[in-house]
């Protein structure tokens, strides 16, 4: 199959969990839930263990060997993230707990007022809807959103009504976690920048599969803020990234106050550290940041272009195979070239929870439910859906196992009777 990683067998060996079996060794794991969280290669696990075994100390304050090593490892991870994103400056990389925290940081600190508008989209994860609902309710600003077309694309027909001089924020996902749609972020950013709105990109699903090079983007198409989470890019949980353009970050007031984010403190007032530390109050998740660094090094070693090609090949194959199962309807774009690695689908006559439960008995792990995208489900008139999502370790044989599993679901629930 064209586009697959040439060393797929070797890549799979890097992920120890893929050896897992169930039912006393009879049923191998078929992990198709990477859009939910990705699995971790041995190098990430080993790097975190090594850090905790040999270099653990608090950062940026401990005047001893270990403190220096821990600081170097933590700041080294920041350098790696900057390289992964092609960030113009390494100090523009803020470590957060996850993507949600990054979005909440911006939504909580960006100045908004009555009469001003925040624009999001109907295909967002709840984490890029709810913070803006809270922010607009708090400030009296108005929340508007792009609707969706029937084939799961953003409906840009009313872009001139949504993006106007009153628009201060345009927040959207690069790749939909439900529909898989890859959005035209450059075009939308250009439009938003014409009215001096800030562009916030949720790259939680994009960072795992798309090569990102912020520096190479024309300035008017480059977002002002971009977030992603560590655990979807083969890194650990508990660590995420907010990248922001220096001037945009400097214009924001601090989010959380505390240790590490100050220049000086008196009982009356404080002055704040420069970015990135201004936004990193308290002891951060150090081992997790170090693990994220190892994860991104791993992905860059495999090559993001290669990973993207692999995703497209697997996605195209999955779309083709799913179409062969009676009663399956795929939500979102039909063309793999316009998609990320998540494919949501319905199986007529069986609720997604029951599909997922029966697939699980065959070792096939998918997600069932609303995938934290209830408005998008509502748009397509479905209450819940099944979602398979692949990653760089996914094989065509695993897609075959999913399809066989779905045939078993059909027979288990006697759909042909």
């Amino acid at each position, binding site marked *: 199959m064209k586009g697959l990683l040439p060393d797929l067998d070797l890549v799979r060996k890097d992920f120890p969990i893929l050896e897992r079996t169930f*039912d006393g060794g009879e049923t191998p794991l078929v992990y198709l839930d990477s859009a939910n969280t990705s699995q971790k290669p041995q190098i990430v696990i080993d790097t975190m263990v090594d850090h905790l075994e040999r270099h653990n100390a608090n950062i940026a304050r401990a005047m001893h060997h270990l403190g220096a090593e821990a600081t170097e490892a933590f700041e080294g991870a920041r350098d790696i993230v900057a390289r992964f994103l092609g960030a113009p400056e390494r100090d523009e990389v803020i470590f957060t707990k996850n993507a949600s925290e990054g979005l909440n940081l911006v939504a909580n600190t960006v100045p908004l007022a009555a009469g001003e508008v925040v624009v999001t989209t109907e295909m967002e994860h709840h984490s890029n809807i709810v913070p803006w609902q809270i922010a607009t309710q708090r400030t009296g600003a108005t929340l508007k959103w792009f609707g969706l077309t029937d084939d799961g694309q953003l409906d840009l027909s009313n872009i001139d009504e949504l993006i106007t001089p009153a628009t201060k924020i345009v927040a959207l996902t690069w790749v939909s976690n439900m529909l898989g749609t890859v959005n035209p972020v450059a075009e939308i950013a250009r439009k938003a920048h014409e009215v001096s709105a800030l562009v916030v990109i949720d790259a939680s699903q994009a960072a795992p599969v798309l090569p990102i090079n912020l520096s190479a983007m024309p300035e008017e198409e480059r977002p002002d803020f971009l977030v992603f989470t560590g655990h979807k890019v083969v890194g650990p949980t508990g660590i995420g990234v907010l990248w922001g353009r220096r001037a945009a970050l400097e214009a924001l007031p601090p989010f959380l106050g505390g240790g590490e984010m100050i220049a000086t403190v008196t009982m009356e007032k404080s002055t704040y550290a420069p970015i990135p530390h201004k936004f990193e109050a308290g002891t951060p998740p150090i081992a997790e940041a170090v693990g994220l660094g190892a994860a991104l090094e791993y992905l860059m070693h495999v090559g993001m272009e290669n990973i993207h090609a692999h995703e497209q090949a697997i996605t195209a194959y999955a779309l083709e195979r799913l179409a062969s199962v009676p009663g399956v309807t795929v939500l979102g774009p039909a063309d793999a070239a316009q998609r990320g690695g998540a494919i949501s689908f319905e199986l007529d006559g069986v609720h997604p929870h029951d599909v997922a439960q*029966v697939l*699980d*008995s065959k070792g096939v792990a998918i997600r069932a*439910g*609303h995938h934290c995208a209830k408005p998008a489900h509502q748009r397509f008139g479905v209450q819940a859906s099944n979602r398979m999502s692949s990653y760089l370790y996914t094989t065509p044989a695993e897609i075959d196992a999913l399809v066989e599993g779905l045939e078993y679901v059909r027979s288990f629930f006697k759909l042909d009777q």
Partner: protein
Amino acid sequence: MTAANLEAMYQEIILDHYKNPHGKGLRDPFEAEVHHVNPTCGDEITLRVHVAGDKIEDISYDALGCSISQASASVLNDLVVGKTVDEAMVIHEEFLRLMQGKGQVEPDEDVLEDGIAFAGVAKFPARIKCALLSWMAWKDATAKTLAEEK
């Protein structure tokens, strides 16, 4: 999960109730209506109760969700309609005991009838909420009805 566990969970009784739910649909009259959701998976139920004196005359409902949550609403309707509120509370307690028993509880068939089919579900922590959705909605609606009478 083994095939045996799967069969234990999806008892024929459950699949029958799922395909032919008893008492489904919203009806008048009713004293209280509630809407409950399971936020983790999005299952929803709108449920009405009609109590006359202390007798439960009707439980009507409209629900979206998996086979477990739908079958459970159907079994609830079977078990509770026609009973007094006190009798129904005893059944509710027994169903709750079964579902929270981690698969270790031997259910009382005299009390739960078709409800004993959910014993297999109790082994799957992720699905217990599905089985309890309609029961919690019923308890809430009944409490509202009783509060209004006072």
